[in-house]
């Protein structure tokens, strides 16, 4: 029976994530607009945009290669595969043995490389510029992520996300300074990976300051819809990851029956909603930084992650 529940919860999780991703982006936009004193578009607007884009035939540059055709599908596929591994309302889903944090980072890197190559395919100036900046920022974001993973792996004894969430929920680790530092490092990485303010502006139309959007300037129609959808999935993935690791409360334990899922679903919605509110407030309160200040931002995240691990060594060494 447990096997059936795990498969069912996995399917439900993927369907939920696929449906919730555009809604989350819409909610964040709506919240930001309210905080700035605008009425803002309807929270379903991103979904409507995607459906509209899907109906349009894409226009490709004459010298675009097969990379432009395949990359959006690969990026969206990598994002779907990655989000399938991040638990939402229940742990112990069918793919839980696969849900390794380093693998999730690898799948995100796969999507990032697909996007960078798509940006370089036509040989337009902004595509190359965006690709170069994206890969350079990732070079600093990834070590910061690995440092946060190091702290989590020492505390939980594994890099498996499902197991980390479980041990943080059941283990009663209490408040630890190292966990706080890892949280800050992970938040900074999440902001950089999702191209949010202050690293990048998701709603900018000024090409010179763009990173993420610069790579997809040549995309249109269903390709653009896929790129936007992949970005929305990534945002949900990062919020879900933070919720699973740092706010595991309410998540249904592994092998539990569907009636516990309802509690988990409610808790998940509250957690993601709260994080979305926090993100909107943070983005409204802060200005975008210069492109060449971003390395300092990510470098600080890296140092905080390293500090968290070192503090952990010191504290366990004394205990």
């Amino acid at each position, binding site marked *: 029976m447990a096997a059936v529940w795990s498969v069912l919860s996995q399917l439900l999780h993927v369907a939920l994530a696929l449906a919730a991703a555009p809604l989350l982006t819409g909610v964040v936009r709506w919240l930001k607009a309210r905080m700035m004193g605008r009425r803002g578009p309807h929270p379903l607007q991103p979904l409507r945009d995607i459906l509209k884009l899907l109906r349009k035939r894409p226009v490709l540059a004459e010298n675009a290669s097969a990379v432009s055709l395949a990359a959006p599908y690969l990026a969206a596929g990598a994002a779907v595969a990655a989000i399938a591994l991040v638990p939402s309302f229940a742990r112990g889903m069918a793919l839980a043995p696969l849900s390794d944090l380093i693998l999730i980072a690898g799948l995100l890197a796969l999507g990032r490389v697909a996007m960078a190559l798509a940006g370089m395919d036509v040989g337009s100036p902004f595509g190359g510029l965006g690709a170069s900046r994206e890969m350079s920022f990732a*070079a600093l974001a990834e070590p910061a992520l690995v440092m946060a993973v190091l702290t989590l792996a020492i505390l939980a004894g594994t890099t498996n996300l499902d197991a980390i969430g479980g041990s943080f929920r059941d283990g009663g680790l209490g408040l630890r300074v190292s966990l706080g530092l890892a949280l800050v490092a992970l938040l900074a990485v999440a902001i950089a990976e999702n191209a949010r303010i202050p690293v990048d502006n998701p709603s900018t139309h000024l090409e010179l300051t763009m990173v993420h959007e610069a790579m997809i300037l040549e995309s249109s129609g269903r390709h653009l819809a896929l790129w936007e959808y992949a970005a929305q999935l990534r945002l949900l993935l990062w919020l879900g990851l933070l919720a699973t690791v740092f706010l595991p409360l309410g998540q249904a334990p592994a092998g539990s029956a569907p009636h516990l899922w309802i509690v988990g679903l409610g808790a998940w919605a509250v957690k993601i909603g709260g994080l979305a509110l926090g993100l909107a407030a943070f983005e409204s309160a802060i200005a975008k930084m210069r492109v060449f200040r971003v390395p300092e931002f990510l470098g600080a995240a890296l140092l905080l992650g390293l500090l968290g691990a070192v503090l952990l060594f010191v504290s366990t060494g004394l205990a």
Partner: protein
Amino acid sequence: MLTALALLVGLLAALGAAAVPLARAANGGRLLHGATALAGFLLAAGGVVGLLGGPATLDLPFGPPWGPMRLALDALSSWFLLPVGLSVGCAGLFALGGAYGPVPARDLLPWPIFVAGMVLTLLAADGFTLLLGFEAMSLASWALVARDGAGAENQRAARIYLGFAGLGGLCLMLGFGLLAGGAGDVAFAALRDDPPEGARAAAVLALLLAGAGSKAGLAPLHVWLPLAHPAAPTHVSAAMSGAMTKVALYVIARFIFDLMGPAQPFWMGTPLIALGAATAVIGALRAALEEDSKVLLACSTIENVGLIAVGLGLALAFRGADLPALAALAGGAALLHALNHAVFKTLLFLVAGEVLHGALSRRLDRLGGLIHRMPVTAWAALIGAAAAASLPPLSGFASEWLLLQALLTAWRVGDIAFQMGVAAATTLAALAAALAAAAMVRFWGLVFLGRPRTPRAAGAEESTGAARIALLVPAGLTLLLGLFPGPVLDLAEPALRLVSGTAAPRAGWFAIGAGDGGARYWPVPVALLVAAAVGLAVWLVRRRAPAGVQRGPAWDCGFIAAPPHFPFGDPAGQPSAAGFAQPLRRMLGQGLLAAHETVTMPGPGETRAAVLRSGFADPALETLEGPLPRWREAAAARAERLRALSIRQCLGLTFGAVVLMLALLAWIGAR
């Protein structure tokens, strides 16, 4: 098996000797390269048989005056036969495809000798044989690097390479001397009976890192590698990066895991971890900045050698700290990455050679858009580049995942200084992996995507036949190694037993794991998951979206089309190699590689153009070519003064030396 391998070494040496008459024959070059390629694949097969069978030893009926030359085939040498054999096989196949008509003998002769030297190093069971093979490998590859005597760059590369090869051989010789101690027997069996301890062990390790480490490309003795590897012909570059660095790493592994005994303390691993991590970052950063495809790939080799060295160092530390399961994990990461890197780097070098052949340039700024003209090369290159960028589910990700798992569990060695050092090494390894991804995107994107940057690139053609097979074989192997790292690790189990001291757990068909209770990586299910997700995306989109695409001019943010005298668009409108590297050059290059950017603006009213100059330099090379020659000159000038001494002073000097020697002898005798 060992006898057959020894015969193969002899045949390769004979093939080298036969190169002079073969060079005159019409198909001599093809014959020689075909035979070497066959020998390479046979060597890999021999490695597999050696791993499945037991160890063997063989005493040759000839050798140095003090005894026979001893050969042995154990699990460690069998494992390293795999990367060497596969790399040489593919490189030979590529050379076979490019060899038409008579070839000068100086291009042919050193190639089989080079291969024979590498195999002899792997099979050696005494210090003399190992050094003989190592030096044959060094000198033959030097001859191939120096073959193009006309180019000043090549001459410089060959000169520096010869210096480093001499230094490496000398250090290894001293290392063997120190290991052998007073008895002077350099047979491996005798060395094992008297493992060094304390200061002697540390001195042996230092000599080993200078000797074999410089050949592998460990910082700060890596500077010759980005000069010499690209200067050789393509198939030799591929074998130097794919195979020769692995032979040097084998020598390191043979010393630290076998000859120096099982009882070394855990801190013996720290120099390897520290040097490896520094090497990985400097190599990856240079790979992200270099503007010549083969130099870029050579720098990426430095990065991967650094990662393998980190794995070897961790395995040594874990064994010293009595954590054999973790030693097997770290050793498995190092051995697997050595094989994976040999295959994908051989592939990438052959791609660079194919591009050089088709578009007549190695400079990224003269290529571009080749995916339209050379599709097979482009897709094969994408597989290799994605593996080098450690993207799942390709081979590079599997071994780097293992290495990261080993680094993440290294805190179990209780010492707090070691824990902090390893945390820093983890950061550096992750930074190197991410930088490698940036370097590979830049390499593949600039060469194969975009618009052609020169007419030559617009008219490039790819070759067919053996050269194409030489690209497809390593590309297929990269896919296979990525999907099935478990069986490969199981094959390496005897070698891991030698490294860690205990039986390693079986990995199984579909997963590799980080010990009991640790995380596991399932490549095949992950590949299926990504494929299913992509399939889902295609299906969902196809249901709603209209089929087909419309073609039009690039939108390019509304820029108007280039004038007709730019048939491939405005060349300034496409990122250049230096421009693409600019963010990383500013972020990391200024601190690590002394990168600089200066803008010279014309004054008001002047009509000359503004100039932007940017560049970087490896500090190790600066030291090599700056202060070192000056010190040499100063020392020579001082030594010259001896010639002006009077006869009395000369006699006094000699007498003083004799007295000093006698005093030394008396002191040694008194102890």
